[in-house]
C-alpha cells in the first residue's frame, strides 16, 4: 500500500508531516502557483517557485516524493492560446528543473503537453477528469497519463474498478476520504467555481459558496447521504488491494496539520477507532453534528462490493444510517449523543 498525503502548502506543515510520516507515505502533494494555474479546490497557501524548490529538496532528502496539483476544471480556454501555452510550458519546465516527481492535471491538453514535452515528470490525472469507465481511462492513457485518480463515484463499484484495471496499465489511485455526495449534482459547478476563484484573471465576488452550503444542508436533512458518499474506511483498503489497486490518496489539503497527520496514521494503520466523521474531508463541518462509530460499519463493504446503486430499491445505506448515526446534543453544559431516530421524531407541531 502506498499513501499520497495532502499538504496545505507552507513549509512548517511539510516538516511536521514529514516528522510523523508513516512508512506507507509515498508522495506528498500541494497546490501549484496560482499566478500561473489554479486548482479545483481551496488553496490556503500557494508557494512561489523558490519556496517550492526548497520544499522539493527537503522532501527528497527524506526520501519522499513531491506532487504538484494543477487541476482546474476550467481555464477559460487560456491554455489554447499561444500566450497560455508559453506560460504553462515555462512553468512545467521550472517544475521539471526542480525535479518535482509528479504533476496532477485534469485538462486533457495539459496531459498531452506534459507527456510529450516533459517525459521525466510523472503525469497524474486528477479525480476532476472524472474517469469512471475503462473507455475513459483508455482515452487518457492514449493522451499520455502515467497514473489515474479514479472518479470517487466508482469507489464502491468493484466491477468497474476491476474492468479499468484490466483495460489500462497506468497506475490507479483512489481518493479515500474526500466524501463528497455520491453523484453530487453540484460537483462540476463547484470545481468550476474553485477553478476561477484560485486561478488567473478576475475572481468573482461571490456572496456565498452555494454548492458547499447546499451540500451540508442536504446531509443534515438526509443523514443517509453521509453513508452513501463513497468514502473508503481504513479497514477496507484490503478489498481494493485484492483487485490490484494499492495507491490511496487522501483528500484534505485545506485542513489542519494535525488532522492530516491523524488521517495519515489511521489509513497507514488500516484502523480507526472513533468517529468516522473525523476522517472525512468534505463534510468535516458536520463532525460536531454526527457521531458515526467507525467500528459499527464493519462488513458494510461486502454489501457495497455487489451494490447495483439503485438506492431507491435497495435502502441499505438508509437503514445503516438509522442504525449507526448518532446526533450530538448539547444540554446542561454536556455533550451527549442521541440515536438518529430520536431526533427524527414525528412532527410535534403540524
Amino acid at each position, binding site marked *: 500500500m502506498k499513501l499520497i498525503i495532502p499538504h496545505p502548502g507552507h513549509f512548517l506543515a511539510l516538516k511536521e508531516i514529514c516528522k510523523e510520516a508513516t512508512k506507507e507515505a509515498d508522495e506528498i502533494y500541494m497546490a501549484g502557483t496560482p499566478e500561473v494555474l489554479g486548482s479545483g479546490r481551496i488553496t490556503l497557501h500557494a508557494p512561489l517557485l523558490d519556496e517550492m524548490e526548497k520544499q522539493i529538496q527537503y522532501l527528497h532528502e527524506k526520501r519522499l516524493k513531491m506532487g504538484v496539483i494543477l487541476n482546474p476544471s476550467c481555464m477559460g480556454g487560456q491554455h489554447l492560446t499561444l500566450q497560455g501555452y508559453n506560460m504553462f510550458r515555462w512553468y512545467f519546465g521550472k517544475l521539471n528543473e526542480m525535479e518535482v516527481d509528479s504533476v496532477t492535471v485534469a485538462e486533457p491538453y495539459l496531459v498531452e503537453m506534459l507527456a510529450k514535452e516533459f517525459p521525466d515528470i510523472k503525469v497524474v490525472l486528477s479525480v476532476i477528469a472524472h474517469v469512471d469507465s475503462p473507455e475513459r481511462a483508455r482515452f487518457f492513457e492514449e493522451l499520455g497519463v502515467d497514473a489515474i485518480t479514479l472518479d470517487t463515484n466508482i469507489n464502491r463499484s468493484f466491477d468497474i474498478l476491476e474492468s479499468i484495471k484490466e483495460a489500462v496499465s497506468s497506475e490507479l489511485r483512489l481518493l479515500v476520504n474526500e466524501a463528497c455526495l455520491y453523484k453530487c449534482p453540484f460537483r462540476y459547478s463547484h470545481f468550476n467555481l474553485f477553478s476561477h476563484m484560485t486561478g488567473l484573471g478576475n475572481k468573482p465576488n461571490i*456572496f*456565498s459558496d*452555494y454548492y458547499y*452550503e*447546499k451540500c*451540508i*444542508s442536504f446531509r*443534515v*436533512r438526509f*443523514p443517509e447521504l453521509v453513508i452513501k458518499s463513497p468514502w473508503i474506511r481504513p479497514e477496507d483498503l484490503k478489498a481494493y488491494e485484492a483487485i490490484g489497486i494499492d495507491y490511496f490518496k487522501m483528500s484534505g489539503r485545506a485542513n489542519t496539520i494535525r488532522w492530516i497527520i491523524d488521517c495519515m496514521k489511521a489509513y497507514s494503520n488500516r484502523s480507526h477507532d472513533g468517529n468516522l466523521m473525523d476522517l472525512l474531508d468534505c463534510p468535516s*463541518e*458536520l463532525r460536531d*453534528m454526527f457521531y458515526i462509530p467507525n467500528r459499527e460499519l464493519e462488513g458494510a463493504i461486502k454489501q457495497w462490493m455487489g451494490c447495483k446503486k439503485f438506492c431507491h430499491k435497495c435502502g441499505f445505506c438508509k437503514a445503516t444510517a438509522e442504525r449507526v448515526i448518532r*446526533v450530538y*446534543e*448539547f*444540554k446542561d*453544559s454536556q455533550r451527549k449523543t442521541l440515536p*438518529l431516530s430520536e*431526533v*427524527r*421524531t*414525528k*412532527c*410535534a*407541531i403540524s
Partner: protein
Amino acid sequence: MRDFLNKIPENRGKLESTIRKFKGAPVYIIELKVFGTACGCIGMLADLRGLQTEDIEVYQKQFVGILSEISKDLGLKPHLIYARTLPGSFEVVAFTARELCSRCKNELGSFDKPRPDLIILSKT
C-alpha cells in the same frame, strides 16, 4: 462576564434541540454569536444548516418564540428577528435577533422585506 459567555454555547444547544423537537428532523446550529456592529446595532446570530424557507412558513411562531427566549436570556431586546436565505435558493442559513441602531431601524425596519434574502419573522 464568564457566566454570560457560558450562556452562549448553552443557548446554541437549546436553539438546536428546540428546533429539532418541533420540526422532528435534524437541524444543525453551527455557531451562535453575540455581536456588536460598527453602526451601533447589537444582537445575536445563529449560523445554521438544514432548514428551508418552507420551514419558516410552517414554524414561524415557534422560531420567534425560541429566538425571543434566547435573546431575553442574553439580555437582548430585539427590534427585529429575521432569517437569512441564500439568494435565489430555498436554503435558510442564519437567524438574527437584532437591536437596531437608528440607521438600520430605517433601512431594515421600514419594510416587510428590506432585502430579497431576508425573511422578517418579527418586528417591534
